[in-house]
């Protein structure tokens, strides 16, 4: 099943009034969109705000989405436009910026944005990365192969079943068991991160 097909069904549900289906789309793409937006703004808080705005715009426009492109492609364009508009709007409001920076002549709107990577957050991120890598290394081989083929190669369950010479149901079970094992290993680190950049 291609990414377009499975997202298209969720999109159709949203167009039919199913708000929960939109929640699933947000969950699928929130991390990708934040990463994309952070190419334009380095401040994590701003990136989260812009991402939120992009999803809201997508929700409002989704009744008009005809499926000519993949949902993510369409969302990607909305996110980029939202980020660019945000930067343009900031340029029109110089008083919001650090006056010292303006006076020093080094006035670059997107460059002076604050970096919220405190030492604590750097350590947290490193701990999360280690916990993740450790949990993947400890997975039985069939689970590790299944999750890698799914998440990195983007293969469908049917394609993975062919590659691993097993039924689709087994693929589904292996991918779930891999996610579950990783979840148990990293959950405590995720909960610490969720509080946001200011905590």
């Amino acid at each position: 099943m291609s990414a377009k097909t499975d997202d298209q069904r969720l999109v159709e549900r949203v167009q039919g009034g199913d708000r929960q289906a939109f929640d699933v789309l947000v969950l699928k793409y929130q991390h990708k969109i934040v990463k994309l937006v952070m190419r334009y703004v380095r401040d994590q808080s701003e990136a989260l705000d812009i991402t939120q705005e992009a999803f809201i715009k997508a929700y409002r426009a989704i009744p008009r989405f005809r499926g000519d492109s993949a949902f993510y492609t369409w969302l990607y364009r909305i996110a980029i436009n939202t980020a660019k508009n945000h930067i343009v709007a900031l340029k029109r409001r110089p008083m919001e910026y650090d006056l010292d920076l303006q006076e020093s002549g080094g006035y670059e709107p997107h460059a002076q944005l604050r970096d919220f990577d405190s030492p604590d957050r750097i350590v947290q991120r490193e701990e999360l990365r280690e916990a993740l890598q450790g949990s993947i290394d400890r997975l039985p081989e069939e689970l590790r192969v299944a999750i890698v083929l799914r998440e990195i190669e983007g293969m469908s369950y049917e394609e993975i079943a062919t590659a691993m010479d097993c039924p689709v149901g087994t693929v589904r079970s292996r991918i779930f068991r891999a996610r579950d094992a990783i979840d148990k290993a990293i959950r405590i680190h995720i909960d610490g991160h969720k509080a946001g950049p200011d905590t």
Partner: protein
Amino acid sequence: MTRIIDEQLSALLDGELPAEQESLLLRRLEREPESLEKLARFGLIGELVRDPSTQASAMVIRERVAMEIAAEEAVNQPARKPSPPSSVRLGLVGAGIAASIALLVMINLTDRPVASRISGGGLAAQSTLPEHTDMMAVDSARLTRYLVSHARYSNTASRQLADSHITMVAATPVAWSNPE
């Protein structure tokens, strides 16, 4: 059961759930925030596997978007016209009104010391009593007219309560007209 649902969540994320199961699971997500949280973590795990530098802070996005959409839709919802109250609710309201008025009247009837406190003393209290009784007669007449005019909102119980009040203050018992 939880494990079955969690496996379905994993398949939902990958778009590999049959349509009927997808519908049921989406309805479940509406009432099970912990399942939504689990789905969110599965999504993050995928991103982390692809890019270990992924930050978990984006996990707040779904909740923020959901709240903003809910707020927008609440604002855009057309104002609902209040539905006409049923006869049962009318009866209850009538009973409540009648009960509270009856209680007030009874307090008036029995609470002579209040009148004396207001007036400030024994001889003064005695001198206010006739005036107090006149006021009560006026109030009773007004109360009777009120209860009769609101009869159609009353059920049997509230009418009996009001009728007993009217009897108590020696007005002529009113023949209630049956709204049915």
